[in-house]
């Protein structure tokens, strides 16, 4: 079997952000469902949170290319 071990690293680094982004949007959907008029206020916060959380996964793919075996 051949391949790049960095891909495994990326897979691992994607777990946390995956859960995190899911939590953020779950909370966002909950909030909008309870108070639809708060959508405009919640949306930037949700996307900002997503950007910050997803950063780890994005660093993961970058580093998977950088630290190739």
């Amino acid at each position: 079997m051949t391949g790049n071990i960095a891909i495994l690293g990326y897979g691992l680094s994607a777990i946390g952000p995956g859960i995190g982004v899911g939590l953020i949007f779950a909370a966002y959907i909950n909030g909008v469902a309870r108070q639809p008029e708060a959508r405009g206020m919640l949306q930037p916060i949700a996307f900002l949170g997503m950007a910050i959380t997803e950063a780890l996964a994005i660093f993961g793919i970058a580093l998977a290319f950088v630290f190739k075996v």
Partner: protein
Amino acid sequence: MSIAALGMEGGGDGFVAPDASIFWEPVIGSGATAITRPVILLVISAALVAWFLLATTKRRALVPGKGQMMTESVYGLVRNSIAKDIIGSHDFMRFVPLLFTMFLLILVNNLFGVIPPFNYPTMSRIGFPVALALTVWVIFHIVGMKKHGFIGYWKSLVPSGLPKPMIPAIFVLELITDLFTRPVTLGLRLFGNMFAGHILMALFISGGWYMLQAGGILPVAGVVTWAFAIIMTLFELLVEFLQAYVFTLLSALYIAGAVADSH
């Protein structure tokens, strides 16, 4: 890259998955100064966008036609639900052209990934998204410094009302976010989505092709794989639109953070 070369690597006969080298398509010249296919696609896309925008806004009918309607609905999306809602109605108009250009350029280039005869998402070459992210990065720093002054801008990174001992730690964190995380993730998010989506589609299509040519029961699996390739193409359409939207939205958010009165 060549099929023969790939074939040899897999031991002569086996299937070799497409890799990053499928993205290297120089048209004129070679090496670091080559004009590559995505560059040509980018120019075509910009020309298309410019032509479409100018053509559909030429007559400026009060009751819009089809083309004007399209332009106006995209413009309305960027202007009202991205720029106005996030930057605030006070000074969002300054940034509408930037965000509108950004959104359209990214959207059209992303859509090139599934539209024949282009079939190449320009943003899957890191040079393009990084350039756009860098543009956004420079702009939101400049407008932030214009608004708060050079020192005031760095001060405004730390939220007010924090206990004194925490300020240095938060400042360092915010500095890293501001100078490094934001531009890097902004560019890499777009790149990664386009790159992975394109390579996935290439994998499905080339794998299906390989299985169709093989003997035995494999062609059935090849047909199923191609069906999945079609589903993936539709999914890619969604992702392409979404990434253009997210890129523009995050640009607006960063600009809004820089020009906000209190951070």
